[in-house]
């Protein structure tokens, strides 16, 4: 996991260096928009060229060129109904691209059999679940099914792989528990384990933090960071730009009118752009530890706001960031 000092941001943005970034996964330092090999020197896991997607011949966005290397996280942000799921379904070969191409590990998507594709990319849907009440172990085993020959039973290698990913995600204690008896956060981790059991190089997740409580959102994001640190490529969608700041190298942002912006998270998630994307005022603030936080700005002189007498906290401007001594004081 790269926890690069935030002050050395290539964008030249001056930001306080906290010197401490526990559990945080600011991967923007590795951002690389050129065709050069990724941080690990490997070839791109995923590359789209002039990709236009949509339904019934109607493209939803302008052409997208993006590239994902091992160890990187691409965060997809856009308003409800802007077509994030459609984008994912196109990447996974459920929908045909209207234009352009998708390549997984250098191979054109249309030339991949379902089995070959499953070896390249694993998919975690929004709010995963199953029609029948499997135990976590049985559910994770589903990730191995694409590798089995027809009629074959899972073997030792499959059982070992399942045990290994269950341990990797720290959900051993749920192994024998059934999905219906688990919380949304635990189920999300089980779904990620199922995807990992597929042993694909890339993980695509549709809003993995949706409908999770605060703590579980953090746990899922930490898990994604850890997996990227282990060399996986990750693409996920979220509605919270702060998630991208916490776990993201680059962001793909749906702009109003069908435009797309793609670049390092820190360049993409500026308040002005987010205000345009979501149609609300967004402001940036810094925590006492000097971490950038994006927040909805109160409506100016709104009746509701004045009636509620919302307290206004005045944070220190970035230039007056607290010293590391005071940062340690947050109890």
């Amino acid at each position: 996991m790269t926890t690069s000092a935030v002050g050395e941001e290539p964008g030249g943005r001056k930001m306080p260096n906290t010197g401490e970034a526990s559990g945080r996964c600011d991967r923007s330092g590795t951002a690389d928009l050129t065709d050069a090999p990724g941080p690990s020197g490997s070839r791109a896991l995923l590359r789209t060229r002039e990709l236009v997607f949509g339904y019934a011949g109607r493209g939803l966005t302008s052409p997208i060129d993006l590239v994902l290397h091992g160890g990187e996280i691409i965060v997809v942000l856009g308003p409800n109904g802007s077509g994030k799921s459609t984008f994912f379904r196109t990447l996974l070969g459920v929908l045909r691209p209207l234009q352009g191409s998708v390549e997984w590990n250098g191979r054109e998507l249309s030339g991949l059999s379902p089995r070959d594709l499953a070896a390249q990319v694993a998919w975690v849907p929004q709010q995963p679940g199953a029609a029948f009440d499997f135990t976590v172990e049985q559910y994770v085993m589903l990730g191995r099914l694409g590798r089995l020959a027809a009629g074959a039973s899972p073997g030792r290698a499959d059982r070992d792989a399942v045990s290994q990913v269950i341990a990797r995600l720290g959900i051993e204690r749920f192994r024998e528990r059934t999905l219906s008896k688990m919380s949304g956060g635990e189920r999300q981790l089980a779904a990620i384990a199922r995807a990992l059991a597929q042993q694909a190089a890339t993980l695509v997740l549709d809003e993995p933090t949706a409908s999770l409580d605060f703590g579980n959102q953090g746990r899922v994001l930490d898990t994604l960071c850890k997996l990227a640190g282990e060399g996986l490529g990750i693409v996920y969608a979220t509605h919270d730009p702060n998630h991208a700041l916490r776990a993201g190298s680059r962001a793909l942002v749906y702009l109003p009118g069908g435009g797309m912006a793609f670049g390092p998270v820190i360049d993409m998630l500026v308040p002005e752009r987010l205000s345009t994307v979501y149609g609300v005022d967004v402001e940036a603030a810094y925590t006492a530890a000097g971490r950038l936080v994006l927040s909805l700005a109160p409506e100016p002189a709104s009746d509701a706001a004045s009636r509620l007498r919302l307290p206004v906290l005045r944070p220190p401007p970035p230039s007056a960031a607290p010293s590391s001594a005071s940062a340690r004081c947050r109890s």
Partner: protein
Amino acid sequence: MIRLPWALLTIALGVLLAASMLAALGAGQYPLRLSQVLQMLLSPLGGGAIEAGDVAQTVLWKIRLPRVGASVVVGAALAASGVALQSVFRNPLAAPDLLGVSAGAALGAVLGIFLGWSIVTIQAAAFAGGLAAVIVVHAVGTVLPLHDRTLSLVLAGIAIGSMLGALIALVKTVADPYTQLPAITFWLLGSFASITPTDLSMLLAFGALGIVPLALMRWRADALALSDDEIHALGLRLPVLRAALIAGATLATSATVAAAGIIGWIGLVVPHAARLLVGASFSRVLPVSMLMGALLMLMIDTLGRSVAQAEIPPGVLTALVGAPVLFALMLRRREGQG
């Protein structure tokens, strides 16, 4: 909920089934002692050479064994079909009788009897009728603009099922009232009374042919509990998986319909009970359901021919037992899942 070690449960059910079969072979209006049954079964002569006038031999080989064998195979095949259809439709309320498979197969078989076809052709007609019915029910259930997918599927099944029932009634009105009509009516009631050794071998052959794809897909079938996109992303070909399971379940069900008429409830209730005992995994639910279905069907038929002077049709007892059991299972399920 108690989850029994499933291997232990499977062995226990297998032993229980074998014991019940031996007991059923002895039970009836001409009782046979266990030692007699075992001696005849194990004798090297087998059923090949029945001494003329040996009543015990005739009863065992010509009457009891086909009947006991047929009830066991029908119970297992109906339960297996229920397991497969519930997986394919991601729906614990799917069952061969509810989805119109049984009624479609019955219409096919009735047409076959009406037109005087051979037994193999009747079997094929039953399969074609069952397959057509499940495809139409699925299509109608998908088109119905209801949010509750279970409800739309069940409604479609009821509607198509009663249409098929009407068509069967139509065939009956034009059938010859002296030769065909009694055969059709008697057979439609569902019964093991007139099973011949030939019926049993047909049932065994087509039932096994239907269960083979289910057994081959026993691991992959679990993936059907996921969404279509997830199944695709797992590297599985959904249309192949779905088609194999529907074809297998329909073939197994239509084999039972051709042999013993429409027998309801087994395909619905038994997989439910099996899931409560061994969890959701298809590879466990399938064998346990087949054993439980065989055992239940055998007990019901043996009871039906022993308790009263007249035989009670198996469909009567499956409904009398099945409906309350289903109700109890659903109540328990609700408690268990909170």
